[in-house]
């Protein structure tokens, strides 16, 4: 079967902004798979883990139908992430995915992708890490991802998971970016639940990867100069090596910064603000945003206006946008699905010294517990909820 052969290549601009869309009622896993179908992916390599497996086994079917050129189940996550790094070096479009423990197992490799300047998309279907073993939704693993140099986008719902995945490939392969893009979504709440997703026709696909226009040459023996391997050996202890490693890391972070305009363009800004004039602002990412939307609705019924700032991009982090959006706020709460409060730390670090406001240290649920709207309201409107 030649699924991809029956598709028409369109520009990202047409795909994202102009192509007519139709609505489907599908799970988050299916939404990601539909994005992959339209993304002109060459190779996908992954190791199964709940809740990621749904998508990656569907991608296997896409391969069977001729939408991808290569696909296999790796021996484990270190093997999968290493192999996808090899494939990315050759200039083909690459996809991998994992969840909680799988991500932690492969973290050494994940943290080396940005330094090797490897465009690829890494889907993260968040799942609890730590002991006792659990498959439940808890996104503590994203706290680790924030330090790796990867671009990290956090999808709220099925629609976002479709849009961010498709956009991820384009952002990742931009010359001034040339970095891996992780697209995270909260497991089960989104991956295994249905929602409405508007998608362009499955007969359209993105243009293929053009490795010749990226920041770092492909390793294919067709790129001059042959002499320079792109993986610098700098394990000598001397000032040249310190300097090189420092410059390398600075450049990764600079590339993250240069991704901002592209993230803003394809995700419609790095944040979304509801009720910007409100004194109490909820700052959230992922499915905590959906819970917060409900809290806004309930508060409004009680006569209270709450504000909501949805963080779409965790790396690059929307620092200026957040400061602007919080300039009228007096009180901020940060609902999260993890015990460490990594988003809370980001918010505190960003707003420190910028405004005279109070940032609550929560609310947080973890271990897979859902976040009741009442809990958000208790934190957002303490008096009214008897807290």
């Amino acid at each position: 079967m030649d699924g991809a052969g029956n598709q028409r290549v369109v520009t990202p601009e047409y795909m994202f902004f102009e192509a007519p869309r139709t609505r489907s009622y599908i799970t988050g896993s299916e939404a990601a798979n539909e994005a992959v179908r339209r993304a002109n992916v060459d190779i996908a390599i992954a190791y199964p883990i709940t809740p990621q497996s749904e998508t990656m086994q569907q991608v296997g079917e896409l391969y069977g139908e001729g939408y991808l050129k290569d696909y296999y189940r790796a021996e484990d996550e270190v093997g999968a992430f290493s192999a996808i790094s090899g494939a990315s070096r050759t200039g083909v479009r690459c996809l991998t995915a994992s969840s909680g423990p799988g991500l932690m197992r492969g973290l050494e490799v994940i943290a080396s992708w940005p330094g090797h300047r490897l465009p690829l998309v890494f889907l993260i279907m968040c799942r609890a890490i730590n002991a006792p073993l659990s498959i439940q939704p808890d996104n503590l693993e994203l706290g680790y991802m924030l330090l790796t140099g990867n671009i990290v986008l956090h999808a709220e719902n099925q629609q976002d998971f479709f849009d961010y995945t498709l956009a991820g490939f384009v952002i990742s392969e931009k010359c001034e970016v040339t970095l891996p893009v992780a697209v995270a979504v909260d497991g089960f709440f989104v991956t295994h639940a249905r929602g409405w997703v508007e998608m362009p026709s499955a007969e359209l696909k993105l243009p293929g990867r053009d490795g010749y226009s990226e920041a770092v040459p492909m390793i294919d023996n067709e790129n001059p100069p042959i002499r320079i391997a792109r993986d610098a050996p700098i394990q000598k202890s001397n000032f040249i090596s310190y300097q090189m490693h420092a410059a390398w890391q600075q450049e990764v972070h600079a590339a993250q910064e240069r991704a901002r305009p592209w993230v803003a363009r394809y995700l419609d800004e790095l944040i979304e603000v509801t009720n910007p004039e409100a004194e109490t602002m909820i700052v959230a990412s992922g499915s905590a945003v959906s819970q917060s939307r409900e809290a806004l609705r309930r508060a409004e019924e009680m006569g209270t206006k709450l504000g909501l700032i949805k963080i779409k991009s965790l790396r690059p982090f929307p620092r200026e946008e957040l400061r602007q959006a919080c300039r009228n706020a007096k009180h901020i709460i940060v609902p999260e699905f993890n015990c460490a409060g990594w988003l809370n730390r980001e918010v505190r670090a960003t707003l420190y010294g910028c405004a005279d406001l109070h940032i609550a240290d929560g609310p947080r649920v973890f271990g897979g517990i859902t976040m009741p709207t009442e809990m958000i309201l208790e934190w957002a409107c303490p008096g009214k909820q008897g807290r």
Partner: protein
Amino acid sequence: MALRTLQVAPGFMRFMPKEYQDLVENGPFGRQVKLSDVGTFKEILEEHPMCEGCAMAFFIRLALMGLPNPEHTIMVGTAGCGRMALSQAAIPFVYGNYCDTNGVATGLKRGLAIRFPEQDKDVVVMAGDGGIADIGFSQVMHSWFRKEKFTTVMLDNEVYGNTGGQESGMTCRGTMVKMAPRGKQFDKIDMLGLARTAGVAYIARLTPANPSRVVSTIRKAVLVARKIGPSYVQVYTSCNIEYSIPADKVLDDARQVEKERYGYLEIVSEEAGAYLESVAAEGGEGR
């Protein structure tokens, strides 16, 4: 084609470093070189920072002469001594994390097959015994089970050379090295047997004591990996520092070890054997 990428626009040639000019004019690219040609062509590896008299460095130099098409070859290495030389060679070299060689090589090979369906691109892993048999064991074995078409070369110095001489799975039983204070408690891992079990198409064991055999073995291993299936070459490359072998006695040691326990061995699948014969009949590439 890749050879063109070596060339320099005519007006610029005189501004290139002498060494580069030499590579373009006298390198082994696009032609077969023989061991007896040494001295008449510019080698892929010349200078490197490995220890004086290191057998591994000597082997790598020879092995690079064995590559049938260096202009279409990519080397993959990892943490360990060998990458210090490999990263100086006039061939693209990929150096990722310790353990990842055979995963990375899998991705490289498959990616290159997608982009260049008409052009053979050879991928060769060269890593230490620790990199292959200990930390990288799983990826090595699985690349063999999956029948990935690339060559794996183990630089077996029977110790962790680069980190200062700790025990590896390939250290001989009873040997006293760092982290084996009572001598190693278990046998050298039988990677050759495991390769055979996994269905590796071409398997060879050797030492650098016979240089022309190094060249021909590598050539055969790469050719088999290109057309038939995975190939594995395990070479004794003594660490003269950790095993206290005087630099001028390194080859004597190799001969001795070859005689005692590291004799030349080839295990060739039927298909690989037939292929090598056909190549030899056509013009001696498989020599």
